[in-house]
């Protein structure tokens, strides 16, 4: 039940999705990934894509400024 943290706040398309996908693919069942991301396209799409690919989005919370934290579980 490990938790990994991924910060993609400084990334741009397509690396926001690419880095998330690569980290998600390393998770074992029960593991979680905390993704720090910015408003706009990453916030709109990263949680939705995770759900589409069969992961559970546990929470989406505002951290500060334009940064949000999304917790994804396999």
């Amino acid at each position, binding site marked *: 039940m490990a938790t990994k943290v991924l910060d993609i706040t*400084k*990334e*741009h*398309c*397509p*690396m926001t*999705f*690419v880095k*998330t*996908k*690569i980290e998600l693919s390393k998770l074992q069942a029960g593991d979680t990934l905390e993704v720090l991301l910015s408003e706009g396209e990453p916030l709109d*799409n990263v949680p939705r*894509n995770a759900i*589409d*690919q*069969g992961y559970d989005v546990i929470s989406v919370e505002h951290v500060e400024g334009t940064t949000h934290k999304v917790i994804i579980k396999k």
Partner: protein
Amino acid sequence: MAEVKKLSIIAFSGDFDKLTAVFTLGTGAAAVGYEVNIFFTFWGLDAIKQKQGRSFTGGNWLTKIFGFMMGGLKVAPTSRFNFLGAGPKIFRHLMRKKNVATLEELVEAAKALGINFYACEMAMHVLGLEKDDFIPEVKDVLGVASFLKLSEGGETLFI
């Protein structure tokens, strides 16, 4: 799990900017769960050459000269503002400065995401290239019929 969506890209151009578009779309699609196939043909074959600079790859003297002039990924020209090869260097500099993935990073991401690379049999024959001239990630050498079969039921782009 939703049904698998598919994107197939015909990478015809060997231009730096157009290859950037190929790999941006490809990696983006793969990252959001698409199956992605890239069919490299003609100038696009430069992107998957083992030797990324200029080298005399080819079967005879004419194709060897073509091979040298075409080069690989590292010497891909921009379609506009190439400035005798300075253009791609300027774009790479701008992309790093703006924290946008460079072409090389996108190619590495494509490999990590398991995007399927295919090389065009006919173009390889014309240019005197063998499968061994390409990076090992190139899954197969195909013709039009095989490409149509594997792209069936998905979206196809020509770049």
